[in-house]
């Protein structure tokens, strides 16, 4: 894991103030690492300038994989490995394969999407979360600014955050 990360935390009480603060901070050229909120805040993605998630692409890929796997499995099983006559149908007849193909497509795209999400967000069992401030699980919004990502001096950044009417400004080191 990365060591010695230094953050400046701006702590906010109200989501409207938070939203305008995000805009002001970004306008003054400070890069925000992450904003933590106890509940979903509408419009926060746009304010932070986040790119849209590419998770649907992963879902589509995993879906295609599931579809291919299911068809290959069934065609191989009933066409090559162990052909059986069922109801006078061809060994490889597509309509009966459709339900299994559909289910595996859905299953793999769902599981694959969850797995992708967990890997991308670095979530895993027994991971000790890096909690910026315990109050983000209760009633405060926290804006975290990574000093390593910014060229401005620490005091200048603190001044900019101060101007956005943050309740508190704290340092946090991991």
């Amino acid at each position, binding site marked *: 894991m990365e060591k010695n990360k230094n953050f400046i935390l701006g702590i906010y009480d109200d989501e*409207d103030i938070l939203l305008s603060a995000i805009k002001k901070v970004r306008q003054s050229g400070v890069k925000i690492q992450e904003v933590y909120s106890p509940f979903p805040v*509408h*419009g926060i993605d746009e304010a932070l300038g986040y790119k849209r998630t590419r998770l*649907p692409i992963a879902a*589509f890929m995993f879906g295609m994989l599931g579809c291919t796997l299911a068809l290959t499995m069934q065609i191989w099983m009933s066409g090559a490995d162990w052909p059986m006559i069922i109801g006078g*149908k061809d060994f490889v007849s597509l*309509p*009966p394969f459709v339900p299994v193909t559909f289910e595996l497509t859905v299953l793999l795209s769902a599981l694959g999407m969850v797995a992708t999400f967990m890997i991308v967000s670095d979530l895993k069992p027994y991971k000790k979360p890096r909690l910026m401030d315990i109050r983000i699980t209760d009633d405060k919004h926290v804006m975290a600014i990574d000093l390593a990502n910014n060229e401005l001096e620490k005091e200048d950044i603190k001044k900019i955050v101060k101007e956005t009417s943050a309740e508190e400004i704290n340092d946090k080191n991991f």
Partner: protein
Amino acid sequence: MAYTTEVKEERYTFTPKAKKNLMVIGIVGVVFTVLGTILALGSGGHTEESHALVGGMDSKELTASIDEGTHGEGDNHAEDGGHHHGSAPWLKRLFSNLWINNVYFAGLGIIGLFFVAIQYAAQAGWSAGMKRIPLAMAHWLPFAGILMIISWFVVNHDVFHWTHASLYVPIEEGGDKIIQGKASLWYWPLEMGTFPIFYVVRMVVFFALWYLFFLWIKREMLAEDLDGDKSHWYKARKYSAIFLVIFAVTSSISAWDWVMSVDPHWFSTMFGWYMFASWWVNGLAVITLIVVMLKEKGYLKVVNSNHLHDIGKFVFGFSVFWTYIWFSQFMLIYYANIPEETVYFIQRLDSQYKGVFFVNLILNFFLPFLLLMTRDAKRHMSMLKVVCPIVIGGHFIDFYLMITPGVMQNDGGFGFMEIGMFMIFAVAFLFVTLSNLEKSPLYARNHPMLGESLHHHI
């Protein structure tokens, strides 16, 4: 964020230019229909040859062999192989088209009301700004009802094989056992083979019920504009909930009556759902297309890409739902392989309808599924404008496949007549819809959920 709900009243004007354009399309439709009829008259000689064209076992022979199997000896009905008696092929094709369009457009009318009703029953807020469009579509209902009842008396012997009195003589004298078993569905309480009073009364009652609930819901929706009283919303929700229960039953029964009974020897327990799914996704596509057209003309400022996204999801989702129902019907019949059931698909797959059969799947499943899959496709009018006409045309083909092979056997075709008659009905439907859209404001400015709709964000 300011949560104001004040919006300016907006009214649609059905311009003389739009009327003129519709008239032109209507005239082209008439020309096409006449042209198609003449072409069908000219090709009368080919029809006998076409029977022999289908390789292996002709679907007609198959029907006949099933009939023999189930009816036993002395069944003179089997001699004509379940083939309908009476009119010349061109006239039957005309009648078949008349019936397809009746059912198809009646569906658009009733889906307009159904859409409004589920919005009320689900207490949906997002659609508050666009509910007047399905309401305007539902104005087609009385016309659809009258047209359908008249058409039924015109087409009956040619489209509905079961209306022939000769089927209801004792089995030994050539009666049809399967059809006699179903006769009470149409003739009760009269003698079978006389006048199908139960059937006709059912048709009248269904349209009357739908129209009645339409009038009640419309009354509350328009009264809300005047005094802004919330009680109108609650009343509209009450009527909607009752209507939905009635619609659940009537939509299924109308599917059996109006479409499934075209193939009276065959039955499918999925059919009610199947026709509903077809009606519903088609209605959604028409609503979406009208919304997009209005927005392009500068109307409906309360509808933005978030609302388009939702209604686009509806079209996408129910295209898949239609496919699910279609496949559920097809797969079970295919897998069980019982001759009484497979005859329906043999008629459609092992004949000249084979191409149309696969085009149906491509237009109604593959294209909407792939084209509307991404988020952007649903949010942009340019893509919706491509997909909705595909779905609308695709479901016309779906209804064509439900009805024509049953009526025409191997004499059917797809050409000017089909397209022309569809255009005539479409123009009539749009005329009724748009002239009623003009009569009331484009959205309910006193709708209790208009504010929610204005701030809808997904």
